[in-house]
């Protein structure tokens, strides 16, 4: 499948600017990285609504919280680990506990920062954000969803964490309104359900076609919202297929895979296979090599799903 490709940073910047035109309360908080998040347009047009604080992520979360109390809608964007892991307690209390209207964007998530290695990977960012009650966690799948999710995030009242990668992002879906908390059945199938989130999903779609050609009909469910989780759609997928594979560019521990297991245990106990980043310290290395190593490429997904669907229940 050939998709039109977009620059995720550009989309983030464009939507921020559009929404900022309509909402004078939107401000941008940066820790030595705003231009890298596509914010140059915003900075040029609204220099007074832009706070470059320097490299101080923990403080930046606090400052964002304070800005929210003063009626502002701060967007704090930085590499995923520096938005979640580094200032975790600030996120938990200054944003989560107080339910502050702060919008955090973790970019270069997963192992997208493959040139920078383990200190810069965001492999537990969803797990951390998901642990904080009342935080909405978004991981859009394609360019259209990213646009929609950005808009929804900025109009939503309350804390949001949005994760995004680095690589060019394909446009797979038509643009439509993004509803927080809704999953989407992208492909019908009865042999197995593959539930996926974030930009790695494009490999799932390709894998599903290959699987179909080999006689395995997979239902594919896109989950651009990880919290609050669309439990109804998971239950439906479990009941329709009896087996679930979860694919995500995140540790197999703590992310969507874990969330799906929790839901299945509660509502529809079926076998679940989590296909993500193994729970070890991943090497630095070219992104494409890491995708293959984790079996998150289409071939790896096909192999995993085949193995799993032929297993005894």
């Amino acid at each position, binding site marked *: 499948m050939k998709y039109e490709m977009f620059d995720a940073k550009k989309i983030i910047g464009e939507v921020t600017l559009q929404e900022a035109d309509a909402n004078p309360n939107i401000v941008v908080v940066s820790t*030595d*990285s*705003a*231009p*890298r998040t596509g914010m140059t347009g915003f900075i040029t047009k609204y220099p007074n609504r832009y706070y*470059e*604080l*320097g*490299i*101080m992520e*923990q*403080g930046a979360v606090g400052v964002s919280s304070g800005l929210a109390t003063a009626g502002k809608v701060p967007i704090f964007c930085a590499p995923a*680990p*520096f938005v979640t892991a*580094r200032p975790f307690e600030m996120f938990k209390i200054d944003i989560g506990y107080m339910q502050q209207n702060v919008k955090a964007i973790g970019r270069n998530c997963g192992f997208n920062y*493959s*040139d*920078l*290695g*383990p*200190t*810069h990977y965001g492999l537990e960012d969803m797990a951390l954000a998901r642990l904080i009650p009342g935080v909405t966690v978004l991981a859009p799948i394609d360019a259209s969803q990213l646009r929609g999710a950005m808009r929804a995030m900025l109009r939503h009242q309350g804390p949001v964490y949005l994760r995004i990668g680095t690589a060019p992002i394909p446009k797979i879906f038509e643009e439509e309104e993004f509803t927080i908390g809704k999953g989407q059945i992208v492909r019908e199938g009865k042999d197995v359900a593959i539930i996926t989130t974030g930009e790695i999903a494009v490999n799932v779609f390709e894998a599903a076609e290959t699987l179909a050609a080999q006689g395995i009909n997979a239902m594919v469910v896109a989950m651009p919202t990880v919290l609050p989780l669309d439990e109804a759609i998971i239950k439906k997928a479990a009941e329709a297929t009896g087996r679930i594979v979860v694919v995500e560019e995140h540790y197999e521990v703590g992310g969507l895979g874990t969330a799906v297991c929790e839901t299945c245990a509660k509502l529809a106990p079926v076998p679940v296979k989590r296909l993500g980043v193994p729970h070890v*310290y991943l*090497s*630095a*290395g*070219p992104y494409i*090599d*890491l995708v293959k*190593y984790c079996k998150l490429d289409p071939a790896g997904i096909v192999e995993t799903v085949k193995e799993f669907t032929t297993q005894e229940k």
Partner: protein
Amino acid sequence: MEANTLNELKKFALDIRIETLNMISKHGFGHMGGSLSVADAIAVLYGNQMKYDPQNPKWDGRDYLVLSKGHCGPALYSALAIKGFFPREELLTINKLGTRLPSHVDKNLTPGIDMTAGSLGQGVSCALGMALGLKLQNKPNMVYAIIGDGEAQEGQVWETMLIAPNKGVKNFIVMLDNNKQQLDEFTNHISSLGDVRQKAEDFGWYALTVNGHDPNAIDEAIEKCKAADKPGFINMETVKGKGWQAKECVLNNHALRGPAFAGVDEVIENFRKELAAMQ
């Protein structure tokens, strides 16, 4: 310092610059600016100050360096390879899958690296812990930490600045690679460090400012810090991208990718000629 020693340190620093540019340009990505600005300090540390054994990196008589601005791994890897911790050819494996040499320094992977860094601000606290632990055992080993001026915006750095003198560590020297630039910007445009030497002194450090590209001056400053009754703080005035003239003190010299390396071969070639002329 004897003329001969100074000459050796200058050659070592040049060699570090050559290997650094070679490895990151061949790989097609790497933190150029901060690696070149810190090259002279690393040359002095590994060329004249630190005790170490390349054959036995874990030798317990060694001095320790924490490169808290961990993104400048390439400069340190070059020094370690030149000194024989691992073969020079290995430098070209930077960031390949399964490498022992990732962009950011990694204790688990590289012979000669004692502390992982990369998330800014963290290394300097770890370094203080090492100094405290060695002091407790009355060991003579020194602990050095190199931080960046952008890194100094992290609150964690100032926690260490406040507590270290209060704990009476004397085997601890923090070296600031004050190259006036951070990732996107000139540091002063974001958050000025002001008179950072004075600040350190006010916090209780024995603090000096030196030209961070003069091996003699760096070496003397380290000697003075070692003799002092307090932890030492050396504000090294440096130039980001030092040695690659077209990239000195300009925006976008932090990390280079692909086409941004244009012209690098000529720079390396000139360094090589300079080095040969010094033999």
